[in-house]
């Protein structure tokens, strides 16, 4: 039995785009325990509700995280709209679905790139990010921003997307789908990639559920839970089937995310086919009051938004619970018994978003 030693991991580490710190208690090459410490990105933006009114808070909510920016705006707006009894137009709802799915595609492609980088496949990393740029171009054309869009507002959408632009998006998505298929083959079939992912960091369905994991991380373990099937926004009108894996290892997580990219293409196609004509916003009068909790499915899993207001210009309390926060206990469990060389990959497989977690 070798002596235990502690290796600090992070906050600045080549594999991490964001700062998180882990104390890895090691016994030879194996991790016995991982102790995370967070707080490097904590800004305290929930308290900003005291200084910014409920309309301005949309901008703050969108800046909880730069990757799932659109979803955060959606969640916050959805909660406030419920408080104010606003029924937003159908077209706005469908646009929210289309943009959410575009976010999911770009987020998953980003993750695939980072994963490829973590297992040392540089050209695959570059390819994934090259394909992702096309989604950002479409975002820029339709919303005006590449990563932070500021297109959500209380009561609908800040701008409409012309029908012919949506049609042109479909053609471009079709080309993109072919490109994603090519890199997906490498991720799924390449022997070297498989040897880095298969059987690494296995989390059973019971464990994942008991630890409260969410999103593709949970679904890869075989639990079919997807908040999109509750039908918020216009998700009730499109076909959403939760995509699950069985094994619950890193390979299954990669597989689930790749299949989710293709599912998102399908959902966008369906939504563009069904989107009705009409306005994209309703006028907002008065101030919100009461409390409401809304759940949406972010690329990383379930995110929860709680808003409490008392009929004043400034809302009383906003609370966000983000998917990475829910997935951290799963990560700590998964790291026990793994090899040191696999730690970066395991951290990446939960698709960590530290900015969301720490707000």
């Amino acid at each position, binding site marked *: 039995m070798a002596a235990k030693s502690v290796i600090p991991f992070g906050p*600045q580490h080549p*594999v991490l785009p964001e700062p998180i710190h882990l104390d890895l208690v090691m016994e030879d090459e194996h991790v016995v325990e991982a102790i995370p410490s967070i707080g490097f990105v904590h800004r305290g933006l929930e308290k900003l509700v005291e200084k910014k009114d409920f309309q301005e808070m949309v901008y703050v909510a969108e800046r909880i995280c730069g990757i799932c920016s659109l979803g955060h705006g959606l969640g916050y707006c959805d909660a406030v709209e419920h408080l104010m009894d606003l029924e937003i137009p159908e077209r706005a709802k469908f646009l929210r679905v289309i943009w959410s799915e575009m976010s999911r595609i770009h987020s998953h492609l980003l993750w695939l790139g980072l994963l490829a980088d973590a297992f040392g496949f540089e050209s695959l990393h570059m390819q994934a990010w090259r394909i992702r740029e096309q989604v950002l171009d479409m975002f820029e054309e339709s919303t005006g921003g590449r990563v932070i869009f500021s297109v959500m507002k209380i009561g609908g959408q800040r701008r409409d997307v012309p029908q012919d632009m949506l049609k042109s998006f479909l053609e471009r998505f079709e080309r993109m789908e072919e490109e994603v298929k090519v890199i997906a083959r490498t991720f799924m079939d390449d022997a070297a990639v498989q040897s880095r992912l298969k059987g690494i960091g296995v989390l059973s369905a019971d464990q994942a559920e008991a630890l409260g994991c969410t999103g593709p991380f949970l679904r890869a373990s075989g639990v079919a839970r997807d908040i999109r099937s509750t039908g918020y926004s216009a998700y009730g009108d499109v076909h959403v089937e939760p995509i699950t894996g069985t094994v619950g290892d890193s390979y299954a997580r990669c597989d689930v995310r790749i299949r989710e990219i293709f599912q998102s293409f399908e959902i966008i196609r369906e939504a563009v086919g069904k989107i009705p004509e009409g306005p994209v916003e309703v006028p907002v009068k008065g101030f919100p009051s009461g409390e409401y909790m809304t759940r949406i499915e972010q690329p990383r899993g379930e995110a929860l938004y709680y808003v409490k207001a008392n009929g004043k210009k400034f809302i009383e309390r906003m609370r966000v619970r983000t998917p990475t926060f829910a997935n951290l206990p799963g990560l700590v469990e998964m790291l026990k018994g793994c090899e040191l060389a696999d730690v970066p990959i395991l951290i990446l497989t939960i698709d960590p978003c530290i900015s969301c977690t720490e707000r």
Partner: protein
Amino acid sequence: MKVSQSPWILHYDGSSCNGCDIEVLASMMPHFDVERFGVINTGNPKHADILLLTGSINAQTAPVVRQLYKQMPDPKVVMACGICACDGGIFKDCYNVMGGVDKFIPVDIYVPGCAVRPEALIEGVKKAIAILDEKKEKMKIAMKQGYCTVDYGRLAVHTTAEDYDAQVQSDAEPTEETEETAGEEKAQ
């Protein structure tokens, strides 16, 4: 554009929302490709010429930033990327935000934007190369005049005699925060 050298970049997220960070990474990727100027994203502060910081820096991340800055060899350039790194941006009023990188370390280039656009970043890197050249020239002169110290195993250069004295004094009394994080950084 004349590129006199290929600077390597060290990127650190000092409590940003991630938007600028993915744009920093996106500018390294095939679409924008700053690698055509020889710019490489390195994880090691001792290999880096440009420190690329995003976010408005909070109490916990400040010692890390200071440590990274100290570990980088001269000549070095600091780039504050995004409006948060420049002055705090939308989070300026938050309780855990210090409001800008320049509260802790000297900043050479400010690249605003929320999120910062890759085109702006590339322009910033271009300017950083010019500043690096300038600093290198100053360093050569200073070395001739002999205002140099060897500090933590690296060469530190001071352009004037007063600057040299001030540096020697500040090195004699290291702050508590930097000592705490020294172990963490070395282990990587």
